């Protein structure tokens, strides 16, 4: 592998191969199985042999993992009936196989609009299955590094995971900027202002706010390294607890404090300033390692 390989530029299939130990990936329901969407042809849209979801097993430094990757170039990574069922099946399998972790390389606009109702229910099933895996004490890691980001129903799913790793190439939220601009005008959110878009929902901002656990460069090796680091953390005695009333109360309190502390901020730079970042205007140019050094993060 090159010294530096862009994660964003790889296909889902390539990302999976790059994440797991060489030669260990075994795909479930791969393309030759032809498990394709039954809904797309009626809309004049071609199907993909894997329905845009690559799932299977592998190892990460010899730790057994289950892994999924969404193909952002196919239907924007949107979750349809088949795609969703593959993800749900993977989580159900995790309950049985008890891997060291489930890794989801997420790149998705959320529910696949071309499959509307089927996609909506599918997302919910994935979310429920993910939470079952968490409740069983198996860590779920979301790795978000694609240019399409992780939005809508997949943004909700990311919010349910144990850990989120992002690069600044990626974004995580509910709605794309175009949707917001369409609804409430360009003053509300100028979708063409890329710097604004990335300040609002990009990896650096999410990291500074505590909404992602690791910020990495757009580099496959960096993502893999972060996943291994988090896996190692999970193996510490007493490290990973399933969700409890206490942990949700704590999360609730932090979310409440956020509204109180920065809920009136008009822009991310205002928030960063309040968080104690000395030069918020420089954040856009800073490297991931520098950003990580900015914020002393208490271990969850």
């Amino acid at each position: 592998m090159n010294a530096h390989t862009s994660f964003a530029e790889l296909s889902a299939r390539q990302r999976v191969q790059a994440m797991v130990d060489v030669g260990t990936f075994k795909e479930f329901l791969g393309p030759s199985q032809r498990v394709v969407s039954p809904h797309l042809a009626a809309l004049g849209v071609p199907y993909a042999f894997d329905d845009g979801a690559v799932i299977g097993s592998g190892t990460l430094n010899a730790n057994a993992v289950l892994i999924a990757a969404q193909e952002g170039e196919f239907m924007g990574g949107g979750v349809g009936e088949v795609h969703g069922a593959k993800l749900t099946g993977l989580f159900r399998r995790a309950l049985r196989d008890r891997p060291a972790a489930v890794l989801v390389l997420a790149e998705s606009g959320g529910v696949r609009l071309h499959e509307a109702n089927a996609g909506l229910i599918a997302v919910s099933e994935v979310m429920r299955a993910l939470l079952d895996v968490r409740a069983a004490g198996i860590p779920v890691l979301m790795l978000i590094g694609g240019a399409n980001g992780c939005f809508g129903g997949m943004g909700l799913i990311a919010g349910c995971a144990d850990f989120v790793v992002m690069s600044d190439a990626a974004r995580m939220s509910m709605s794309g900027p175009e949707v917001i601009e369409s609804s409430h005008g360009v003053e509300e959110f100028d979708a063409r202002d890329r710097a604004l878009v990335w300040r609002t929902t990009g990896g650096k901002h999410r990291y500074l706010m505590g909404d992602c656990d690791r910020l990495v460069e757009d580099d496959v090796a960096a993502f893999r390294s972060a996943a291994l680091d988090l896996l190692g953390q999970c193996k510490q005695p007493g490290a990973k607890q399933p969700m409890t009333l206490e942990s949700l109360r704590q999360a609730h309190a932090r979310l409440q404090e956020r509204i109180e502390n920065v809920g009136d901020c008009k822009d991310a730079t205002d928030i960063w300033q309040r968080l104690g970042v000395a030069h918020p205007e420089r954040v856009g140019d800073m490297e991931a390692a520098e950003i990580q050094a900015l914020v002393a993060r208490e271990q969850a």
Partner: protein
Amino acid sequence: MENLHFELPGQRVPSRFDAVLVGVVGSGNLEVMLEPGSDPAHCTFAIHTSARGFGPIWEAVVRNFQNQHGLGGVVVSINDMGATPAVVSLRLDQAVASLPDAGGAQI
């Protein structure tokens, strides 16, 4: 949608291989999957495309491909979202390059 099917003679049967896949089904793009086929004297092409009415062009592209590679015992399956002939040819070549015979990595 349009579904096209071609069967062209060819002699070069690749050594035993697992299915290979290249490309993605994005706008102006396509995915190409190669699988072992049961007829060693032919290469079959199954094309699923959102661009209708381009049968003759597809035929020209696959014939050109077979003239170069002359594959036998191979099934080529394509899901296409309006790629140009140049991009189609590129993906077909990339797919062949992925075969173990060509030293390519299985994906």
